[in-house]
Structure formats: structure tokens, C-alpha cells
């Protein structure tokens, strides 16, 4: 009995997320979300949960995670086009390629901390961006982007409409569950200790560099899965997938949602994509201005993001009850 209760306790957030995600096609259109936007939200949930393993746990702010997202998207596109229209081998090869790149970039960039680390990751991502636009043009399609992919297949199943959504949602649920497992493991503890006091950690017998590299590669793998799913969702890869704008968007999603909470960044991703696509219909270009104001307000008044707001509301709600 106790173990069952523990299982429920540990995975409450996963169950709630699964419930919200799987019922999304039912209620999302009522809020004005167009079909397909829900899929994009699921994909970015994967991206930001992975990003939180790096930023939220170890405190290392990468400005170059679009590189892994983009590399994986290009490789998936090329695989679908020239190897097989089955998405499974395409995703596996794409994630493997991005992981390898992440391992190399991680080894080089994690020698530095703070702003230097951020700048180095940004530089690497920009390097891949310009490579996609120049020497790799033959494969990436350069300015025009990579197009002409066949309809992706999951073995005999055509990946279209709701099938894509459910495939992405299930991936997001599994990957969120795994991230939660990592958080509860000794590895998660060591990663969070890096953020607190790296010197003490090293003097406590822990090789912090290996844990940082693991966090970096894991988060890159999440980004790569998101990138691959992006191609399954929409058969197009543009160089903006690799750009700093994409990296920055993930940072903003994480910060407004609540860094280090895993759930928060997903709320941030959903919020950003929903408002970007639904509100911008009314606001047009002004949307970015509104986003800027929201971002500043969160950073100044609510550094813990949406999750802090929720915690405060909970506290207020429960204290009033106690008071009565």
C-alpha cells in the first residue's frame, strides 16, 4: 500500500500532465487554439523540460540549444527524404547525431562558467547556423530551407492530424516522467548541488564536470527529440531552427514558467505559443512588445515565474481558510 501511495505521490505531476495533454484536442479548440498548435506545444514542452535539466538543475544557461534542435531537425528531414519515410530510424539517427555534437560542444564549453559558458554555446550555435547557410547548403537547402519530405510514416501509420498530436503527447509524457525520475535520483541531487556550491561538491568527492556534461547532453537529447518531432509535425526545416532567436525563446519560456521546476517551463512554453499564435491575431506585431513587458514583469516581481505565482496563490488561499 505504502509503495502505491508513494508512486502516486511521486508521479502526481506526471498524471496531471498526461490528463491535460491527452484531452487537449477536446478543449484546446474552444480556447481558440488552431489544430496543430497543440502539437507544437507538446513538442516545445519536450524542449523546455530538457532545457530545465541543464538550466534548472545545474544553473548553466545555454544560449545555443537551438543547435541541437536544428541539427536534429535537418537530419530527420534528410533521413525522411533520402532513406525511408519511417520516422523511427529518422528520429534515432537524428538524436544520435545531435547527441554526438552535444558531447563535443559540452566538453569544450563546460570548461567555462557563467556568462562565458553562455557566450560559447551561442557562438557554436551561430556557427552551425552559418554552416547550414553556406557549406552545407546542398543538404540543408540554405535560404529556402529543407522541403520535399514525403508524408512521414510510423511503420504503416500515416503521421497526419491527430496521430501526430498523440504521438508527440505520448513522447512528452514519457520524457517528462523520465526527467522527474532523474530529479529524484542521486544524479539529480548532484546536478542541483552544482548550482548551489560547486567547490563544496568537488571537495565532497564528486566529479562535477562529468555531471555537468551529463546534464548538458541529456538536455541536448531532449532538444533533439523536439527538433525531430518538429519535422514530423511540419515537413519543413529552415535555418531559423538553428538561430539564436530559437535559443532565446526557450530561455524566455523557462524563465516566465519557473526555472528548475520542470512543470513551470512547460507552462511557459504553452503560454508563449498560445499567445504568440492566438493573441497575435489581434495584436499583430505589437505582440512582441507585450511579451517583452510580461517578461520584464516576471523577472522583476516574480523571479520564480508562474510556479512562484501558483505557490503564492496556494499559500494565500490556505492561510485564509486557516484564518477563518
Amino acid at each position, binding site marked *: 500500500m505504502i509503495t502505491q501511495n*508513494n508512486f502516486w505521490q*511521486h508521479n502526481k505531476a506526471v498524471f496531471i500532465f498526461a490528463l491535460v495533454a491527452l484531452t487537449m484536442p477536446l478543449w484546446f479548440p474552444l480556447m481558440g487554439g488552431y489544430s496543430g498548435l497543440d502539437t507544437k506545444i507538446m513538442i516545445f514542452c519536450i524542449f523546455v523540460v530538457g532545457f530545465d535539466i541543464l538550466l534548472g538543475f545545474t544553473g548553466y544557461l545555454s544560449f545555443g540549444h537551438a543547435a541541437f534542435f536544428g541539427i536534429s531537425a535537418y537530419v530527420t528531414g534528410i533521413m525522411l527524404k533520402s532513406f525511408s519515410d519511417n520516422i523511427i530510424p529518422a528520429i534515432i539517427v537524428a538524436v544520435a547525431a545531435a547527441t554526438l555534437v552535444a558531447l563535443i560542444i559540452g566538453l569544450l564549453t563546460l570548461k567555462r562558467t557563467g556568462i562565458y559558458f553562455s557566450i560559447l554555446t551561442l557562438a557554436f550555435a551561430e556557427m552551425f547556423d552559418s554552416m547550414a547557410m553556406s557549406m552545407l547548403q546542398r543538404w540543408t537547402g540554405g535560404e529556402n530551407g529543407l522541403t520535399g519530405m514525403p508524408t512521414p510514416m510510423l511503420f504503416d501509420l500515416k503521421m497526419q492530424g491527430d496521430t501526430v498530436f498523440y504521438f508527440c503527447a505520448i513522447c512528452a509524457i514519457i520524457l517528462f516522467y*523520465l526527467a522527474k*525520475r*532523474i530529479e*529524484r*535520483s*542521486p*544524479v*539529480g*541531487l*548532484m546536478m*542541483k*548541488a552544482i*548550482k*548551489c*556550491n560547486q*567547490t*563544496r*561538491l*568537488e*571537495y*565532497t*568527492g*564528486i*566529479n*562535477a564536470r*562529468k*555531471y555537468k556534461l*551529463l546534464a548538458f547532453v541529456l538536455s541536448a537529447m531532449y532538444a533533439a527529440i523536439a527538433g525531430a518531432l518538429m519535422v514530423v509535425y511540419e515537413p519543413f526545416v529552415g535555418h531559423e531552427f538553428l538561430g539564436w532567436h530559437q535559443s532565446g525563446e526557450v530561455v524566455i519560456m523557462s524563465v516566465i514558467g519557473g526555472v528548475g521546476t520542470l512543470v513551470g517551463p512547460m507552462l511557459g512554453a504553452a503560454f508563449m505559443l498560445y499567445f504568440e499564435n492566438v493573441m497575435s491575431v489581434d495584436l499583430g506585431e505589437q505582440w512582441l512588445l507585450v511579451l517583452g513587458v510580461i517578461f520584464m514583469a516576471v523577472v522583476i516581481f516574480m523571479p520564480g515565474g508562474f510556479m512562484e505565482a501558483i505557490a503564492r496563490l496556494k499559500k494565500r488561499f490556505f492561510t485564509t481558510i486557516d484564518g477563518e
Partner: protein
Amino acid sequence: MAILDIHQVSLSFGGLQALQNVHLKIEKGSTHALIGPNGAGKSTLLNVLTGMLKPDDGSVMFDGKPLLNVNSYDINQLGIAKVFQTPAIFPEMTVLQNVTIPVFAARDGSFNFNMFEGRAKQRPLIEFAEQQICELGLEDHMHDLAGSLSRGDKRRLEMAICLANKPRLLLLDEPTAGMARHETEKTIELLKSMDDGITKVIVEHDMNVVFSLAEKISVLSQGQIIAEGSPNEIKGHPKVIEAYLGEAQV
């Protein structure tokens, strides 16, 4: 038998000779104090022992194994723990999490790829961490954030972190610096009550602490060991008085 053998260690920062041919043997199970005026090289010597600084010359052997060119975490895994001058803890974590880290470090070594193992399921390890916390009198703060503790409690927590992976040699860099009298007394009691199997090296300015704990004292001045002996021998040693007070006026 010497657990730590420092042999002819020299280190200079630019033109400053921080350590000069330092010879030091620390007996197993003893409490050895390093004293000396400011800038004598005491902290530098500790930093050499923990792998933070690489000496220009000389060798350091710990229990028969060389310590030079070994990473800090590997040195800790060999059994050397350091208590910092300002308590080094994990402030944003709970007291229990703070002590759980060295417990897992003792079990898993410097790195382990066990990403999906539940920490809470390792009951014996968590219980051991709890026991360490109780032994240092922090049981009331088990689930408090470490950063919210008082300075004395932070120091105790740091000791708990250091002791949780069962070190054989404990290096203490001014463990009572900035403490009130009664906190200092408590720290002395704590160090005295510690397991005799643990060798302790204490760098300290407070002579009360030094003389109530140390079995042997080495005096450093300008990067050199100028005297060594029992507390009584050191008290009246002319070279020591000279180093601390300047040359005697006749």
C-alpha cells in the same frame, strides 16, 4: 606511522615564495595544529593537500599514495576532507540533502550513471545521513534550508558533510574563525569527541583552541617550518616568539 608525508614542498606565486622546502609528517590518529603569523603559508599548504594548488617542487604522500596532480574529488575519495574557513555548504538545499550528497559519494565514487534510481528507496543510506545530522545536534533542522541556519549550525552541517563519507584525514581551516566564545567551546568539544581514527590537521589563530586540541604543533613562518613539537615545547620556543612578536629588543 605517518598518514601524511609532506616532503620538500616548495611553491611560489610570482616572486613570492609561499612555501619553502616544507617537511611535515602527520601521525595517524593525531591532532596536528599548524600555526604561524598571517601570510606564513598555512592555507597555501592546505590548498596543496586538497589539490587546489600544484607545488613547484616536492612530494606529498597520503597513506602511501601520491597526492600531487590528483583532482580535488579524487583526493576526497581517498579519504581527505576539508572544513573551510567560511562554512561551505549547499545553501539552497535542505540539511538532509546536504548530508545525502557525501553519503552517495561514498557509495558511488566520483561519478555514477544511476539516473533512474530513486534516492528515497535507499533507506539505509538516508538513515545514515540522518544519524550523522543527529550526531552533530542538527536533528531539529533536518528539513530546513541549509542557508537559513545560524553560523554555528552551518559549521556543524559542514562537519556533518565532511564526516559523512568517513574521511581518514580531516583538514580544518580556522574552524572557529568569527565564532562567539560559547560556539568555539562547542566546536572544541565536537572535535575532541570525534572518532580517534580520524587524523586532524588544524590551521588556527586562536591559541586557546590550538592548546586544548593539538597533540603536536608545527609553526610556519614565511613559508618555512621554524619549529615543531608538543604544545609545551612550542609555548616557550624563542623562534616562535620572534616570529609572532618580532625580534626581541635587548
